């Protein structure tokens, strides 16, 4: 990896590549040629609302998510075709296999939250596959925000459903000798906090790793000194990774959603 270090002035090609994911860098201030720097230091009501590439992508994916669900719900006629059919199939899958399986008959009022979570994460994952765009979910802050939201929601749901004290008492399974709880209770508390942490890190790292692999494969072209003989190989490999990334985007959105649903369900009904 000798040439890696010499390709750019500051750091090697991988450091340079990782800069792409640093939103504080100049990469973060441009979105398809639109300069976002006027908004880059926005503060309102004491909140840091600075806008960068990832924020614009968040707005876009929110709009797209709402758009496709609205489109699927307001299509003409009862018979869905084409794109509408696809959205409906995914929605039905989420409704039956995630919401109703994890939350049972109470699933109906959780549908906007769980379904919205799935489509929001899915579109956020997919939007990063557009070259020049940025996947908000490949930034730890976005996934952490979502995971913390899920954490707070399942804590509150559990405490409302079981009562604030009973919920904490039910963290560890009942019917064990007293001294076991001394060991078990701290472990359960750690497990509780590991839930959102693993949620956030899983989604973030999966998305980041996928992008880094694609970038690395393309960086191989530069490492091969742009030779026409060798360049097609990494290019083809990156195309295959792209296809795999679409699959990963779907799987990760599904996993984040079903784990959230399971956490919420088990917080409300600890015996299951």
């Amino acid at each position: 990896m000798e040439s890696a270090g010499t390709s750019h002035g500051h750091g090697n090609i991988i450091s340079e590549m990782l800069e792409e994911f640093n939103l504080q860098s100049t990469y973060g201030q441009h979105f398809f040629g639109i300069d976002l720097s006027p908004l880059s230091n926005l503060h309102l009501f004491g909140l840091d609302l600075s806008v960068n590439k990832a924020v614009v992508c968040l707005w876009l994916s929110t709009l797209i998510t709402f758009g496709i669900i609205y489109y699927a719900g307001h299509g003409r006629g009862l018979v869905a075709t084409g794109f509408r059919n696809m959205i409906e199939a995914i929605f039905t899958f989420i409704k039956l296999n995630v919401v109703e399986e994890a939350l049972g008959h109470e699933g109906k009022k959780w549908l906007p939250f769980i379904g919205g979570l799935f489509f929001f994460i899915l579109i956020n994952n997919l939007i990063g596959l557009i070259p020049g765009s940025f996947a908000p979910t490949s930034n730890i802050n976005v996934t952490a925000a979502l995971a913390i939201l899920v954490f707070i929601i399942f804590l509150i749901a559990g405490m409302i459903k079981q009562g604030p004290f009973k919920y904490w008492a039910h963290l560890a399974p009942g019917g064990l000798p007293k001294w076991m709880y001394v060991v078990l209770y701290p472990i359960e508390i750690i497990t509780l906090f590991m839930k959102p942490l693993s949620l956030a890190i899983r989604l973030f790292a999966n998305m980041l790793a996928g992008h880094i692999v694609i970038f690395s494969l393309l960086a191989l072209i530069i490492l091969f000194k742009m030779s026409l003989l060798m360049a097609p190989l990494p290019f083809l490999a990156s195309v295959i990774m792209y296809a795999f990334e679409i699959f990963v985007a779907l799987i990760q959105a599904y996993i984040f959603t079903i784990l959230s649903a399971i956490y919420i369900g088990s917080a409300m009904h600890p015996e299951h």
Partner: protein
Amino acid sequence: MEGNLAHLGSGLAIGLATIGPGVGIGTIVGKTIEGMARQPESAGALRTTMFIGIAFAEALALYGFVFAILLFAK
């Protein structure tokens, strides 16, 4: 040679972190296929559960990945 010990640690972190989850995911998928072969009618439920299991195993590798990134970008 350039780089520092952090780069070495980064490579070791991701390399070692993938061993366990690799074995784990292999076991999960293998057992799932066994189950599917034995009871093809429950293949759908098994596949769903398999993905959740893979997610848990994979998370361990991803912790390593995150540490590798942290060490690399240091």
